[in-house]
């Protein structure tokens, strides 16, 4: 391993200021710091620093997403062969899904990181790790048959318009992965919704609608898959979002390590469950023919992108509320908005994406009022001191 270090040290001067490849400094640094934690020491302030850094933080989010992703690969194969009326082995299912999903992941990372590297280079910054997470989340929230060129365009849109124009990682207003999803949803609606897209290479005769699609067209409650299928994830849907169970496994990893905010996750579920319960009560009186109103509240939490959004999307610290109190309000409103859109809006079967994006926009406002409260308290204290 010493040899590797020696090679890096010997070529490093060429990338430093004045070197032959100094214009590639950011890229070189990105690779060097990927291999080695840098030898930088503290200069001012605290002489010791915690061992955690952005790379490890982001790596943990990716790790938390992996169980749901692997299951998603298997489920793509499973749904495909199910629509054909065939039963194949676990590995065949997985392999089928892997061949579908792996190219999407590659395209997402190559396009996204490519743009990140270029911007870092232009700005003379180090390459930020934020996209490591976005790059895995984007493939998980698209339908399995999404053409690769669409993934590429959406990723480019998300990174450039969603993030870099605001100044890069840490400065963006909207969640980049959801920006990509929203772009696809509005630019190519026929490839992103309906009952054709959720099962890869589906047999034509087989109904491929998601549970949410069924409800939107007011099909009877009995036509839904069982709650246990939805919880474990044996249903058609976007690549990584079907298994509520494995998403919760990811949530546990994020909460235990302290990387994901449990306040946001919990409050999204609370908000969604609360409003859905309310609809259950008033449903028979105000809209007896809206099947969605009568849907048991807990179904909302295991259907569609609700759990995935709560655990991996709403918790993005940059676009979420930053104060602890604000996180509760932000989370509850996401849950409420998502169920509101699902139940009351006849055009969209799923509301999670729009709910999170909307609350991303409102997060700074929520924080403003929370901080304002603290300021008022301080002013009041000062006044008391004078009298």
């Amino acid at each position, binding site marked *: *391993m010493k040899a*590797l*270090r020696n090679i890096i040290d010997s070529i490093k001067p060429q990338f430093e200021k004045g070197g032959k490849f100094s214009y590639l400094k950011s890229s070189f*640094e990105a690779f060097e*710091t990927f*291999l*080695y*934690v*840098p*030898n*930088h*020491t*503290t*200069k*001012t*302030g*605290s*002489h*010791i*620093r*915690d*061992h*955690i*850094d*952005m*790379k*490890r*933080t982001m*790596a*943990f989010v990716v790790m938390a997403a992996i169980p749901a992703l692997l299951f998603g690969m298997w489920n793509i194969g499973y749904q495909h062969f199910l629509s054909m009326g065939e039963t194949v082995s676990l590995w065949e299912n997985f392999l089928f899904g892997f061949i579908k999903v792996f190219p999407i992941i590659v395209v997402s990372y190559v396009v996204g990181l490519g743009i990140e590297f270029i911007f870092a280079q232009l700005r003379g910054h*180090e390459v*930020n*790790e*934020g996209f490591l997470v976005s790059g895995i989340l984007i493939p998980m929230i698209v339908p399995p048959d999404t053409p690769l060129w669409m993934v590429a365009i959406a990723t480019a849109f998300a990174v450039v318009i969603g993030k870099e124009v605001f*100044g*890069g*990682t*840490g*400065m963006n207003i909207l969640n980049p992965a959801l920006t990509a999803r929203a772009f696809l949803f509005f630019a190519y609606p026929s490839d992103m919704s309906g009952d054709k897209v959720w099962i890869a290479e589906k047999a034509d005769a087989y109904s491929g609608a998601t549970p949410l699609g069924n409800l939107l067209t007011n099909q009877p409650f009995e036509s839904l898959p069982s709650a246990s299928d939805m919880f474990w994830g044996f249903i058609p849907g976007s690549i990584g979002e079907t298994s509520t169970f494995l998403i919760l496994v990811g949530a546990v990893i994020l909460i*235990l*390590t*302290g*990387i994901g*905010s449990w306040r946001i996750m919990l409050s999204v579920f609370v908000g969604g469950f609360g409003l859905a319960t309310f609809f259950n009560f008033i449903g028979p009186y105000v809209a007896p023919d809206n099947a969605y109103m009568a849907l048991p509240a807990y179904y909302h939490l295991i259907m569609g992108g609700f759990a995935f959004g709560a655990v991996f999307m709403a918790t993005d*610290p*940059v676009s979420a509320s*930053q*104060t*602890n109190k604000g*996180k509760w309000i932000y989370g509850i409103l996401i849950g409420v908005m998502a169920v509101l859109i699902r139940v009351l809006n006849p055009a969209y079967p799923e509301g999670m994406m729009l709910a999170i994006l909307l609350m991303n926009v409102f997060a700074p406002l929520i*924080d403003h009022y929370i*901080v304002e409260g*603290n*300021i008022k*308290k*301080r*002013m009041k*204290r*000062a006044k008391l*001191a004078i009298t």
Partner: protein
Amino acid sequence: MSKTINIKQGLNINLQGEAEKIIADVEAGQYAIKPIDFHGVFPKLLVHEGDKVKAGTQIFYDKYRDNIKFSSPVSGTVKEIRRGAKRVLLEVSIEADAEQSFIDFGIADPNSLKREAIIEKMLESGVWPVIRQRPYTVIANPKDEPKAIFISGFDTAPLGVDFDLIVHGQGDAFQAGVDALKKLTPGIVHLNLPAGDANSKVFTNSKNVQINFFKGPHPSGNIGTQINKLDPINKDEVVWHLKPQEVLTIGRLFLEGRFNAERIIALTGSEVIKPKYFKTKIGASIAEIVKENIIEENVRYISGNALTGRKIDKVGFVGFFDNQITVIPEGDYHELFGWALPGFGKFSFSKSFPTFLNGKNKKYRLDTNLHGGERAFVMTGEMEKVFPFDIYPMQLIKSIMIEDIDAMEQLGIYEVDEEDFALIEYIDTSKIDIQAIVRKGIDVMRKEMS
């Protein structure tokens, strides 16, 4: 009316190399006063190299507040006046005489002196600078009337010193110091002690103070935390604060009539062979203290603790306000896949390393590596976990970064000092030098308000 206050947010960083409770005598030989220890002081020199000085002879004074004078801690010869870039005065070092002689300022009982007389005595002897004020953490202005004075009687910082040991047998000096302080404020003199410990009788028997107890992890021993919980600073208010050894210095001035700069300093840190306490004086050279007591060469010498101290040379001098020297390994190495490996043995506030399974009492050998590259703020909610103030830390830091004076004031800049942000800086995933930012904010604010 003593209170017990429970601090929930915070973190104890357990480092190896805690000082054994033995006090050794050491003759440091050289001593220095460093203007850099006093924020906002512009020194005007009063001595030249080669001058003979006594303990208590004035060395320099502050150009903008010329009644604040700084004295020699020992008698001897001015050895070197060291200047840095733009002729900034870095330090005035003094070679101590074998026989110490003192300027006589006269013995007096602070209880029978008027406030003005006490202040005058402290200013003339050079003892005054031991009192600092908030806001801004600068030397107290003798013209102010502080609403209260705070003494933190314990140290929760990494390898923090044991003040019970340091003040042992010094009850008279401590009481005299407290009596003098009591005359300086119309309010209360707060003495803050750890809850549940058997505190030194010197503290618990002292009069003219209100004793408060604090429970919980670092920063419960920090003066900023204690002020915030007991009597937070509002705009236009001033409080003063000291540490126990500084109270002793004041007390000795009245009991002995001289500037007795005695200090007990702890030598701590994982790279020290025999960590223990040393009896010396303010501004002592560390050369004799660390001699033949350090394990290896590539180490960092810190005057103060590992979170807030100042890096010094191995022949450098202990800072004016510091009670300890910390020696930890330098971290100038590359680590292959350091961010990805499980990291057994790597201490972290987050639970992303398995070391949290070791429990809270395991001691670690931490070095000065940043453990990552500097990034933009990404994570939220971490800072609040180690920051017990009723203040939004990230919002305050951001307001300082954009120099928004109004926002800084509204968000509570008067109540904080950079040391209050040391833990935040320690745990920060983005590796931002937060203490430097906070200091900048305080300096901007002080300039704005003057």
